[in-house]
């Protein structure tokens, strides 16, 4: 990636200060979001989100497994992000690993809550089949196909869309199992359980450039940032997770201010996303 010249840097910073960004958006406007669901039929659920040039694919695969002994009534979810070298040559080989790990961890923190499983955005108790013995393991895999800034938001949105597209097959437990043995499960071919995704939070990243914050920064804008905060907010307006990146220090009042701005933005984003996802699902059903 070619670096930016001084003139370009000034242009970007100045534009943001004046509430006109390089592509004409206002500070708190998102790029047009394009949602497609069901792109990978082999997975239980999948979605592809395009925010401008940023292109991510997210899939959900469900497998049967054993719940953790500490939480016998909950299922398990694991999130994994992979940066494809198609997105940027520097992601080739092991180059993208750092970024991938960072994104995975951030996503996990935002969506899954703490170690005890409390406060997770996804309701894990709906994943259990036989308490203590069998539960669903969800593997959420994301792939960054093309990167043009604001990866975390896009990934969060993609996961939300993929989960709403996910169908988990209905399981019937065979009667007569006793004691410690593994009970037999009969998996139905036809029926599926749809996930309830209304509670899943979205992630909003606010990038501070100069004295103002913008949402949905492109790569160039991100290169100018001093610091950024990613906040995951759910429909009720509760904050599910918070990450601060960037070296510059932030005054606490600014942080609070950013949070309230994020909350405000998130409402619109959630509505937009939901309608887009519904449209995509409907379109998918018809085809």
């Amino acid at each position, binding site marked *: 990636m070619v670096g930016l010249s001084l003139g370009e840097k000034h242009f970007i910073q100045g534009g943001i200060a004046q509430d006109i960004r390089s592509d004409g958006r206002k500070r708190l406007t998102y790029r047009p979001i394009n949602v497609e669901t069901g792109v990978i*039929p082999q997975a239980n659920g999948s979605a592809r989100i395009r925010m401008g040039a940023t292109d991510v694919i997210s899939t959900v695969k469900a497998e*049967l497994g054993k719940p953790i002994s500490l939480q016998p009534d909950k299922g398990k979810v694991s999130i994994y992000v992979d940066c494809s070298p198609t997105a940027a040559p520097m992601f080739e080989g092991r180059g993208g690993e750092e970024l991938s790990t960072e994104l995975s961890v951030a996503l996990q923190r935002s969506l899954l809550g703490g170690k005890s499983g409390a406060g997770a955005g996804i309701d894990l108790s709906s994943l259990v089949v036989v308490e203590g013995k069998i539960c669903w393991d969800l593997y959420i895999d994301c792939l960054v196909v093309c990167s043009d800034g604001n990866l975390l938001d896009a990934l969060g949105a993609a996961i939300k869309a993929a989960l709403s597209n996910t169908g988990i*097959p209905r399981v019937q437990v065979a009667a*007569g199992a006793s004691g410690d043995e593994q009970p*037999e499960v009969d*998996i139905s071919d036809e029926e599926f359980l749809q996930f309830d995704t209304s509670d899943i939070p979205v992630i909003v990243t606010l990038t501070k450039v100069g004295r103002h914050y913008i949402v949905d920064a492109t790569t160039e804008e991100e290169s100018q940032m001093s610091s950024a905060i990613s906040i995951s907010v759910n429909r009720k307006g509760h904050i599910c997770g918070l990450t601060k990146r960037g070296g510059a220090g932030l005054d606490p009042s600014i942080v609070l201010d950013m949070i309230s701005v994020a909350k405000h933005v998130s409402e619109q984003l959630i509505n937009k996303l939901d309608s887009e996802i519904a449209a995509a699902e409907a379109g998918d059903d018809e085809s």
Partner: protein
Amino acid sequence: MLHSKTFVKKTRGGKVNKQVREHYLRDDIYCGAPICKLCDSSAARLSPSASTILLLDTNVVLNQIDLLENPAIDDVVMLSVVLDEVKNKNMGVYNRVRALCSNSLRRFFVFANEHHKDTFVKEMAKESKNDRNDRAIRVAAQWYQSHLGGAARILLITNDKENKRKAIAEGISAETIESYVKSLDRPDLLDLVVQPSSEDVEMEEVEDLRPSKRKVIYTEHKPMSEITSGLHRGIYHQGKLRVNRYNPFEAYVGSESIGDEIIIYGRTNMNRAFDGDIVAVELLPQDQWHEEKSLSIADEEDEEEDVHLVPSSADDAPRTTNLVQGCSGDTNAVSSRPSGCVVGIIKRNWHSYCGSLEPMPLPAGSGGTAHALFVSKDRRIPKIRIHTRQLENLLDKRIIVAVDSWDRLSRYPSGHYVRTIGEIGDRDTESEVVLIENDINSRPFSSQVLACLPPLPWSVSSEDLANPVRQDLRDLRVFSVDPPGCKDIDDALHCTALPSGNFEVGVHIADVTNFVHPGSPLDDEASQRGTSVYLVERRIDMLPKPLTEDICSLRSDVERLAFSVIWEMTPEADIISTRYTKSVIKSCAALSYIEAQARMDDSRLMDPLTTDLRNMNVLAKKMRSRRIERGALTLASAEVKFQIDTETHDPLDIGMYQIREANQMVEEFMLAANVSVADKILKHFSLCSLLRRHPSPTREMLEPLLRTAAAVGLNLDVSSSKALAESLDRAVGDDPYFNKLIRILATRCMTQAVYFCSGDLSPPEYHHYGLAAPLYTHFTSPIRRYADVIVHRLLSASLGIYKLPSIFQDRSQLTSIADNLNYRHRNAQMASRASVELHTLIYFRKRPTDTEARVVKIRSNGFIVFVPKYVF
């Protein structure tokens, strides 16, 4: 043309796996009716004048396959959805349907409705798979109706009430199979129709005719999921059920998890399982385990049962059949064997059985359907209840019956009649029963097979002579020695004295592979048959007669093609060199054993042929003594010779087969040839040679022999084949037949020699116990054994004059060929013995005789004797 539709399926396997498959819909699938104007009728199979075209439901195909094979049912369209379901449910029926469809005489057409864009049916929500398939059948029927216009009537045959109702509602004519067969007005066909089970039609009273036995109820079989979990947990055991031939209420299940056999005793415990089914067994509590002595007639001693299976053989039946029991005064009578009861059947092994109906009084008024009990010739199969309209016809006939189902409430399984063989006791009928029971194909060769033969009259052509690969050995003094009246001569010998004092000895075998080419219908048919079967009154050939008796047969005074093994050996019968070559020979004499022996014995004869015979004899004796030195066994097998009346074909006299020196001489050289060839092909093809081995019998197998010998105070050393041979030689008693008896008993304890593929086993396991040879194969009788044909091909390839067909590269195919050959060989042997038994019975039927006998075995309710004069 192409249209893609992604199709989602889910499979199991511990984890859930979503699978996506493509499913293309086409518009170039034709309907198969020649009257259709829209489709290309080059592939049409249905008849142009068909008035009614039948579409069959899956259950109809599965249950009524015998009826479908009857030529009266024709002009049938098989939908691919039906075929797939049949394939998943019953592979045997599927193969038969496929055979019907590819048979050009029958008008069955396969319509790929799943891939036709107009008849493809997508699964609707909440629809079960069966409903969807039924809907697909109905849609296909409707499509056919609209496609063919009114040219033919489309009839959907289904026994499912729901399906029928919906079909009629949609405008498709539908009928049950019974009503259709009735409409054909052929009462004999109605017998073939299987009675529907209770779900389809209101059940008639099918209870036993004896009211006192009405309610014998079997426990329900457990569902498959429970059985699998039970197997995992070790409370159930899986194994193959083998029913005791002498006591059909007793069976054994060989289970690896226990390491011993589980006895199933009693009809209730057998719970509707048949011999050969794979069952799941639950052990009974230990106090209910049967003790040994109660199993009186349970001894599994039977001539046919020296099919002892080798510890590491490919067969999947369990190991020893020898149960140490029976004799009173035996050691621990209290040690019990694990007993159990059958809780579920994992895989059924039902097929058609020969037998006859139990005699019963005719019902008043003929023409109605009667229930009859069918008793199978094989005592291990329970009686089968069938319905028939022709009771009085069938009562004295041998018939074939197939099993359909065994309800919990019914004492006997239900089946249906398939066909009649002939009258009971009639020699030809009983012979045919023997053939059917042993799965021997005695049908005449098809025209395709006969088309592979060269035209008659055949003689060695100039190209054959000019072929550099073939050596011209017509100047050698070649002769053959065979049983009298033998027309299929596959081996000939020559023995020339060399100036050095050594002998050049040659074994010439008919060059069958010159005429039987791999992949040809002739080869496939021979491969299936595996061997010629020798019954008393006839011979079922593996290859067509023109080949066996003329073109390949090394008759005297004609030039013939051969495959030769030529040794140079010293007067002490040590082999100096061996060479193999294809050749042209001209036999100068086709002698019988008696003639050859007479010539050798007559000291006045000094002609070159007799000199050769004598030289060979001397060499043979030396080779034989060396073999015995190494430990070859000479066991007496009771071979019976019948003299058949040429007109009635009834047996006139029975006698023992005489073994003369001439027999042994020929045998010796054949063995030597087989050993040499085995060596050669193994050297070149160490992984894909077809060899023959004889596993050493285990201690347990020799138990009965040792016990019997001990009972008369004889100690046999069985540590090695040589020791056994020597012990047997020393076993002489006052009774002149004693030695023979002991040898016969020893034969029964032996394992069976089997063919195998060299790549499947390690060299120490190639050993042939009986011949005390490290390597052995069959080479010398390609006219009557398919194994020899294979070995001929291997030998030619090792000489570099033949390209080995690709089948040899596929180890698993070779193994299955070897398994088939072993199966056919065993069956041929059993059929021969059964035929001998049959003729013996026929012989004695008219001539009750008193004669001397020897007691061989005593059981608690009987004893077995050996009749030396008639050798059985």
